[in-house]
């Protein structure tokens, strides 16, 4: 009995969400196969972005809400690919390549910003995300484009939704369309996520990874040991931003349409909520947290609107409920973490 109590104590947030998910699933009355299908699709779509949160948490910078900026870099790269009209998996990889320098520069900028606001990284990242969103919109509205596929008539600005038919499912269905017992499996996408897990694991074994861990534990000690704290933190943010850009490209190739003004908006919040649901704290996170969190969070995401419809006869309420849940879980997780940290 005590062991069960301990499990609940150590994994409060995941336990609550397992409960909510199961109850929601029962109320929604959806078939198990359909839910499984959806969850696996969502896992492929979102896991990479959620994984990109781990490195800054290890480096003691909290949750990187500036993920949205990385996502914008990914979107700019995708727009470039659509202009160049490169089809299929080559298109996706070209987007990866193009987004690399953009995300690198953005990441450098955020890193410098966060080094100036040590201890307030999360709110800085959040506001920086909104700020960049404004600049990004200015770029989108003002950029001269002569391409009829994505440009607005008149030669200035980009359409608000872009069809990504040329790269749709290019990773998910590579090399072929895989179906096991009627369940679609995005094998190659999951393989790429696995590669990122391996990379994060490998990084933690290198010297840089050790420096990150020490910086995350105690910044003063790290400085005394002669670690260039600022450099380590900037590297962590750059890596996170680049991975966020790639993650956004992966998720967009699955969705198949780019909403130019809005696709990046919720990325940071949903990813943060997912990793927190998985039991991560703002001081400690591993890839198991990311995987479990993504599964649980998107399980609720799928069943909540249907459950809302069944209880209240109004699909709108389920929609509001899942947004409330995404924001609420961040508040609750931060609150619980902070309480626990103060106990020491």
């Amino acid at each position: 009995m005590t062991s069960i109590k301990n499990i609940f104590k150590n994994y409060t947030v995941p336990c609550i969400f397992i409960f909510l998910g199961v109850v929601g699933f029962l109320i929604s009355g959806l078939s198990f196969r359909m839910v499984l299908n959806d969850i696996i699709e969502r896992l492929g779509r979102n896991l990479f972005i959620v994984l990109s949160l781990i490195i800054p948490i290890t480096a003691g910078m909290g949750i990187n809400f500036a993920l949205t900026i990385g996502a914008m870099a990914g979107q700019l790269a995708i727009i470039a690919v659509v202009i160049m009209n490169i089809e299929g998996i080559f298109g996706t990889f070209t987007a990866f390549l193009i987004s690399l320098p953009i995300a690198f520069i953005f990441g450098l900028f955020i890193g410098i910003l966060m080094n100036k606001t040590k201890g307030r990284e999360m709110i800085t990242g959040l506001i920086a995300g909104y700020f960049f969103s404004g600049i990004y919109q200015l770029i989108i509205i003002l950029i001269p484009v002569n391409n009829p596929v994505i440009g607005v008539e008149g030669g200035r600005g980009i359409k608000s939704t872009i069809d990504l038919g040329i790269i749709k499912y290019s990773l998910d269905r590579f090399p072929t369309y895989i179906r096991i017992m009627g369940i679609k499996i995005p094998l190659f996408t999951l393989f790429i996520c696995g590669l990122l897990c391996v990379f994060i694991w490998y990084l933690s074994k290198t010297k840089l990874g050790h420096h990150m861990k020490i910086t995350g534990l105690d910044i003063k000690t790290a400085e005394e040991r002669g670690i260039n704290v600022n450099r380590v933190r900037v590297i962590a943010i750059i890596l996170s931003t680049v991975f966020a850009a790639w993650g956004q490209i992966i998720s967009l190739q699955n969705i198949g349409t780019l909403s130019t003004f809005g696709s990046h908006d919720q990325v940071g919040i949903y990813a943060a909520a997912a990793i927190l649901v998985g039991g991560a704290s703002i001081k400690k996170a591993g890839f198991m947290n990311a995987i479990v969190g993504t599964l649980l969070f998107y399980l609720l995401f799928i069943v909540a609107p249907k459950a809302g419809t069944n209880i209240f006869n109004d699909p709108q309420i389920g929609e509001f409920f899942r947004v409330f849940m995404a924001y609420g879980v961040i508040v609750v997780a931060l609150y619980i973490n902070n309480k626990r940290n103060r106990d020491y």
Partner: protein
Amino acid sequence: MTIKNKKNMLVSLYVLFFIICIFIIFGKNTFFDFLNRVGMNGILVLAMVPSVCCGAGLNFGISMGILCGLLGGVISIELGFSGVSGFIFAVALSVVFSTLTGIGYGKILNGIKGDEMTVGTYAGFSAVSLMSIAWVLLPFKSPDMVWTIGGKGLRTTISLENSFGGILGIFGSIVFFVIMCVLVYLFLHTKTGIAMKTAGIKPKFALNCGIKPDKYRVLGITLSNILGALGILVYSSGYGFIQLYQSPLMMPFSAVAGILLGGATIKKASVFNAVIGVCIFQLLITLSTPVINSILTDSSLSDAVRMTISYGVILYALVRQGGRRLK
């Protein structure tokens, strides 16, 4: 006269000079538009002052107070009040609601010292979503507010024509704002106010003086919440509509940008900052809208510009404040 007072005088003279210039250059209409905006947004910006003073940083969770104000207003319409009595009833109700939520919210913020602004933002966001559910489910009946088709759930925008829309007028809202400023100023100079400021600046020192910082933080946040509720009622009354659902989501950010433009920081803010800040911010918006519209006929562009400016200001303030001293 101290240096600070001299500086304040100088700044106010500059701002006054600019406002007079605008009156001369752009004429009466723009000027009244500007005054109207100041009256409408003033109290929302003022609401940041107690929260900063008590050490909780900028109150990004002001949307909670805003929701209380909206709830008060909606109930007042439902019960059939109109005109001045409707406004007063709405104010009274929303003060009760916002006091209760403010105390709860303050207690939450006491549990997460250091991350108040991050948690405040998300607490505000989640409250907006929660209340969106409530707007659909609450059993309102008034035909002025409920969707005509279906007869259930409140509309996204509710016209205040039959209730308290525009009853304050431009002059009234300005006077209301000034009264609130004076009240907050007086409060900050009472014994309680000074204790609160001390608790905000140096919690350890305050504890040694026998002041309980946690108690005063709850007080400051509650005050901020109440001012937010009053602010949205004045805003709605001036605007002529109550906006529900997702519209309070981004309101805290413009209020925060307003007070930061007035020279406040995360650690320090005064009533003076709020007044100057709201003047400058609204001046910017009043003037930039016709200018941008004449250059480019795209309305989404002026939104993007406004967004960039206000978030840029907040970001600059965060960077200027620098890092927290690390243990």
